[in-house]
């Protein structure tokens, strides 16, 4: 049985393999890899961030900034601090849009159904009428993300301003004020949405079927703190053991075959691996630092081990990042920017760049041949990292549902689980 999955980024389908009235296997499938790793071979280094951005219209900023970082690594240059702040604000703009669209349009109808808040399936038109203030807050946040990308990035998506060495953009006083105002308004909106989430769901128990199994998690921390731009990679293993490593040494921990789908982890644990908001939350909490605010106390342990908790964490990340972005813009002078460093001499054959994209750890690895031409590219995509866990989870869930529910209801619920993993198929089919 094949069912097309709705309300996800891109086109994917769920294949159920049924034999003798039993589900043997379930697989989430999407179209073949587009081959961006091959497309980039031989391209000029300064041209690459503009091409990789086109992999995805949602994760475009993460892709182009990870790419800039990998090229900066080849040249041994570091952008000035103003450029880094603007990049971080642009990544926040991307995160706001990506998380809020997923939360509201893709997953919120599932939450209303799974927690029996509404009895009928929720379509888009009754979704936007569910709570008009919620809907207008959501629209405002999408607008915030779009406007900030446009002002600081030069365009609504596929940003123009990130360039190897720094940023092309020097914000004017007026634009800084406008962006700060957008963020201040966004802060009020996300605060409302967070409280709404607590009111609607915190006293209810999440369905046990959505509990996460014992697993490993991958994310980035900067000296133990939440930071999606800079830091070391961390893997917390299922036994609680945490490994910390520099991106330069990533090959000791994971690898992939170019142009083939799937990432292989070399850690000593057979358990699947998860990256994204839940991993970032678990890692920063494990390091004694939490970005997370007082609303967390409304959720008990049953919530915190459940995949549906990702929705609350998405909202919290938006809340925290808006607050830090306002802080950064208020405390740093961005008007008198230092010059871009010159890119004269390539210092290494391998360049590594990573960021925490909204959906998790994203790594770009470029290799140059002796004439300094790119001859190999490896892109590690968060959705690819989460893929084995997603498949295992939907298989177990479908097998359980098959015994007690009809096929329509089974398929509807399995799709809810796929959406909770928030797969980005555009990135996954890079």
């Amino acid at each position, binding site marked *: 049985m094949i069912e097309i999955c709705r309300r996800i980024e891109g086109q994917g389908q769920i294949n159920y393999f049924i034999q003798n009235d039993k589900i043997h296997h379930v697989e989430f499938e999407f179209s073949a890899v587009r081959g961006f790793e091959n497309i980039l071979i031989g391209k*000029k280094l300064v041209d690459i961030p503009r*091409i990789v951005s086109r992999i995805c219209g949602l994760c475009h900023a993460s892709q182009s900034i990870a790419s800039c970082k990998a090229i900066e690594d080849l040249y041994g240059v570091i952008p000035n601090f103003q450029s880094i702040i603007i990049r971080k604000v642009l990544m926040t703009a991307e995160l706001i849009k990506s998380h809020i669209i997923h939360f509201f*349009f893709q997953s919120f109808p599932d939450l209303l159904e799974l927690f029996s808040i509404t009895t009928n399936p929720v*379509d*888009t038109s009754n979704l936007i009428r569910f709570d008009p203030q919620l809907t207008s807050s959501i629209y405002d946040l999408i607008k915030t993300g779009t406007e900030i990308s446009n002002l600081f990035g030069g365009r609504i998506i*596929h940003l*123009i301003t990130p*360039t190897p060495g720094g940023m*092309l953009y020097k914000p004017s006083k007026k634009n800084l004020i406008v962006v700060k105002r957008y963020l201040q308004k966004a802060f009020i909106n996300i605060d409302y949405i967070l409280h709404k989430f607590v009111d609607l769901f915190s006293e209810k128990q999440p369905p046990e079927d959505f509990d996460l199994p014992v697993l490993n998690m991958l994310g980035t921390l900067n000296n133990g703190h939440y930071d999606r731009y800079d830091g070391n990679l961390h893997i917390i293993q299922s036994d609680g053991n945490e490994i910390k490593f520099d991106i330069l040494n990533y090959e000791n921990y994971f690898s992939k075959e170019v142009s083939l789908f799937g990432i292989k982890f070399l850690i000593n644990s057979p358990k699947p691996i998860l990256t994204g908001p839940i991993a970032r939350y678990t890692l920063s909490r494990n390091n004694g630092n939490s970005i997370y605010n007082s609303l967390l106390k409304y959720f008990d342990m049953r919530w915190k081990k459940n995949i549906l908790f990702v929705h609350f964490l998405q909202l919290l990340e938006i809340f925290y990042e808006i607050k830090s972005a306002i802080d950064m813009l208020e405390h740093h002078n961005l008007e008198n920017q230092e010059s*871009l460093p010159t890119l004269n001499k390539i210092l290494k054959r391998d360049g590594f760049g990573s960021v925490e994209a909204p959906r998790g750890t994203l790594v770009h690895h470029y290799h140059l041949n002796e004439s300094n031409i790119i001859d190999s590219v490896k892109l590690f995509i968060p959705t690819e990292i989460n893929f084995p866990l997603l498949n295992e989870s939907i298989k177990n869930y479908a097998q359980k549902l098959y015994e007690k529910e009809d096929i329509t209801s089974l398929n509807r619920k399995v799709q809810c689980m796929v959406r909770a993993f928030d797969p980005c198929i555009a990135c996954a089919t890079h």
Partner: protein
Amino acid sequence: MFPQFLEKTEITFFPFITNKKDLIKSDIALVEGCVSEESQIETLKNIRKNSTKLCALGTCAAFGGILGLSKKKRSDPISKFVEVDFVIPGCPPPINLLGNALMDLAENKSIKLPEKNMCYSCPLKGDMKANLNTLISRLLPSNSELNSDDDKQVCFLKRGILCLGPITREGCDHQCIKQGIPCEGCLGPPSKDFTSNLINFLSLVSLSNQLKRYDGIFNRFSKPILKRR
């Protein structure tokens, strides 16, 4: 723009945010993305059959798009398989162009795209005397040029940097040029097809051998269309 558009329309099919499984008769279809696999052609024809007006949204749908750089994958514009009523080009479509076009569609008007090229109202137009003998040897300005405010006031082609402004439709408010980098041509040509414009233009300017060999320009947003439907 999104809420206003939603107010005036009813979404009949949009897998990204709705559950609806089947295409039903609709007034407008907005189609994104190129055709890169055989199975997409049938879907596309089904969309055409069910919609009064069909609009190619974005450069991938309009011209084939970034997958043109792939040597293995096909990347056909949707017009190769179905009749297209309107095109909203750009990678991404510029926010004002997109907003106005969507509102025009919602009000049952036709979309009007600018008809001039990028140079027509370019902020770097200056005296406009193009010297075709200037050797074009670079794709982007260096970081030291980007640091200099004086350099940023001069036409890219005069500085030996490849700018596709002359063969690209205006309508993006010169977003890239204002940030100091040349036009990469994402809005496509004001008339005729992408590749023939590019061939004509590149044969007029003096392109360095290195750029002639660079395979990031020619098929960047469109592959040559060899055979029509």
